[in-house]
């Protein structure tokens, strides 16, 4: 995706994005699902994602004419007098009537995404909100401004937005609208709400214990436990493979250099030995590419699903809480009714509504989540297989061309002998 320069494995220091003139002075462009890489005039370095097609096939809801497509694209490093941070350009195309314009383009930073997610959780407590990539990175361990880190994060943020935009309920959320359209997000209001939210959560959580979880939700819980366990295992295996590949690579390089140095002391055998050295070196390059892909594409998506699974577990827990609250209040109300014949309080009914709403939403979200999970993993795993196939293809090509060279030399020798 990046322009030109080869990259090493993630975590090796990369050169930072070049500084550019103040964003407001640059002309806003409207983006279309075009080529992967584009270099705009003015010498800016762009990283683009064109995932327009993803929106179309991810879920049936977005196939209708009222679709929002949010494209996360160009990113620029913004320098202000106070601090340095990365902003991302979020471009939206929509046919929805709630939006004034058919297209928007705004700049957002990670904080803004975090804000959006918080608002969504507040305002849609019964829905599963997709996860964000991790907030905190240890300084000194990962370079926050390295191309790779930024790109990985950008892909994850893009995915977040897409999932939200695809959701039949979340995509209508006014906060999403604000996020996609407002030039400046007024977030102060959000903070006040946050403290209120915190109180209400505490209020609910106090004292209600769930007695029996309905079997369908139980099954969900068990599935999530097993699933997240397996994900963790796969992550560990993938990391182990990366480590082993890295050691393999080191030995291969040494191996190639031995052939090279032997070639130096031979005459007839010089070319064949150099040829083998060259092949091994080509295989080294192919292996490096494979490892890099696994590190940059495979692992982050895997980890994101771990987060997603955790989010889902949280939602299940919240549902359990709302059921517990309802049952608790109901029990208390029934007791009181038996004592002094007061009618069923409104509170209890509200709780019942809330619980039933939660159950319905959760079931719907679960189905959607399962569907997305299947698609995502299919894509992820097929991608892994493709990368491996590609690796072997490159190696095979290299060795086959060496064989041709060696065999030509052989027939050359044989004909010169018989002559």
């Amino acid at each position, binding site marked *: 995706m990046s322009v030109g320069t080869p990259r090493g494995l993630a975590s090796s220091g990369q050169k930072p994005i070049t500084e550019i003139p103040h964003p407001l002075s640059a002309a806003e462009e409207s983006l279309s699902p075009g080529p992967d890489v584009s270099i705009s005039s003015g010498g800016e370095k762009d990283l683009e994602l064109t995932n327009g097609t993803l929106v179309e096939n991810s879920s049936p809801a977005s196939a209708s004419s009222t679709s929002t497509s949010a494209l996360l694209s160009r990113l620029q490093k913004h320098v202000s007098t106070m601090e340095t941070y990365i902003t991302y350009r979020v471009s939206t195309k929509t046919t929805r009537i709630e939006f004034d314009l058919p297209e928007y383009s705004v700049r957002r930073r990670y904080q803004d995404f975090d804000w959006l997610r918080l608002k969504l959780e507040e305002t849609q407590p019964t829905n599963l909100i997709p996860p964000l990539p991790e907030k905190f990175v240890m300084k000194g361990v990962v370079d926050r401004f390295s191309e790779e880190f930024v790109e990985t994060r950008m892909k994850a943020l893009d995915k977040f937005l897409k999932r939200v935009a695809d959701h039949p309920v979340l995509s209508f959320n006014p906060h999403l609208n604000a996020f996609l359209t407002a030039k400046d997000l007024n977030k102060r209001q959000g903070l006040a709400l946050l403290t209120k939210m915190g109180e209400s959560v505490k209020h609910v959580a106090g004292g209600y214990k769930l007695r029996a979880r309905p079997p369908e939700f139980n099954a969900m819980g068990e*599935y999530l436990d*097993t*699933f997240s366990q*397996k994900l963790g*295992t*796969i992550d560990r*295996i993938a990391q*182990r*493979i990366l480590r*082993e*590949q890295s*050691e*393999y690579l080191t*030995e*291969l390089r*040494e*191996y190639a250099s*031995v*052939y090279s*140095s*032997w070639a130096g*002391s031979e005459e*007839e*055998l010089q070319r*064949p*030995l150099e*040829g*083998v050295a060259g*092949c091994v070196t080509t295989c080294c390059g192919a292996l490096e590419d494979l490892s890099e892909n696994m590190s940059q594409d495979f692992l982050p998506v895997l980890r994101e699903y771990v987060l997603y699974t955790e989010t889902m577990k949280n939602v299940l827990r919240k549902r359990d809480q709302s059921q517990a609250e309802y049952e608790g209040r109901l029990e208390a109300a029934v007791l009181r009714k038996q004592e002094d014949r007061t009618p069923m309080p409104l509170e209890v009914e509200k709780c019942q509504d809330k619980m039933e709403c939660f159950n319905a939403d959760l079931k719907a979200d679960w189905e959607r989540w399962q569907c997305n999970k*299947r698609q995502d*993993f*299919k894509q992820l*795993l*097929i991608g892994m*297989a*493709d990368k*491996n*196939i590609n*690796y*072997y*293809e490159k*190696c*095979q090509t290299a*060795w*086959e061309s*060496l*064989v041709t060279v*060696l*065999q030509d*030399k*052989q027939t050359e020798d044989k004909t010169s*002998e*018989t002559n």
Partner: protein
Amino acid sequence: MMAENGKDEAAAGSDGESSLTVERDSNLLRRMEICVAEAEKRSGKNAIGMQETFTVYLIETRSADAAAEGRAQPPDSVWRRYSEFELLRAYLILTYPFFVAPPLPEKRAEFVWHKLSADNMDPDFVERRRIGLENFLLRVASHPGLSNDKILYRFLTEEACWKEAVYETGFQDKADSRLRAFGATFRVRSPQKCFIDMKQYSEELQSHTSQLLRARARVADRVYAVYKVHGNYGRVFSEWSGVEKVMGDGLQSAGHHMDSYAASIDEILEEEEHYADQLKEYLCYAEALRAVCRKHELTQFELETASQDLVSKKQQRDELATGMVRTFSFKGVTNKLFGQEAPEQREARLTMLDELIAEAEDSVTVKTAEREEHVQKAWADILRFKEEKDRDLREALLSYAAMQINMCKKGMQVWSNTRESFLKM
């Protein structure tokens, strides 16, 4: 085409890996087909009376005419163990110090990568040794200088009594003392430059082949680990498939493919051992080449020593005859101190010196002849060796490339199958 220049691929009956190019022009291989057909375990008492188990190899020989005429002739056979091959080679080296002795397969498994058995009784090791022993015999039997040796012939045809026959030749007496050989390297004055250069080359060849063998073993270790870790995917996909309804089948079969991927590396690396064996042959050959070059240094040194000895004896005689002392000698000192000796004594000494000079002259003649013979024969053989080496190693590299291609094809196949499984998810 084959008859034209007499060069041919060595077939000699085995379906093993004999991809040597040997000359059918040479004597023994024209008359006789040779192969090392089998290996068997035996038990017996060793030199110090202890029970031991060892492997013996069956050498089958058959008259080449019979085979050519299509006569079904049963082969003659002889059982030999590794130590007897070693003895034969030691005999050949000492008897023909101007020939680069063909290599034997290694005595113990070296340059092993961790999974490979270092056990001499391991069936894979025994099989590869069988092939190595056969290559040795084919090379020796097709060597223009070595193939006519009687001891070689008896090795191939007489099971009993061969050992005694070898020792009877007294070949061990020809062994040069280590010290003398070592000293010659430093003190020789005018060895031929081509031998010095060739000795340098032999040392480089030794260094490069052993470096390569070591590096290859390390690479094998690493690639083994990478493949085996993928087996873990097999297990986790299988476990995961248990909780999935829709994705279950695809995951399950993907898991099986990952298992077979992990298992495939064993065969791949076993096959690569043949390549390592070919490199080891040349590691051994490099040592043999070096020995021939050092033998040249020794023969040259001995000639120089003999010549110097002759010169100094002639000088002594001169001085004795003319009475002029040009060089320091104890005789001169005692003459000065105690007076000249009597004329009869002088005559006696002159006569003795004359005899010594005659002996020294003979010695110089012999040493010159030895040196000449060695230079002629050794250089011719070195050239022959050089060509064989270039051919063999190019073949080895080609077959290594073929192995790599095969490995890539297998890898692609497995991942394609895995991909198919993922598609079904």
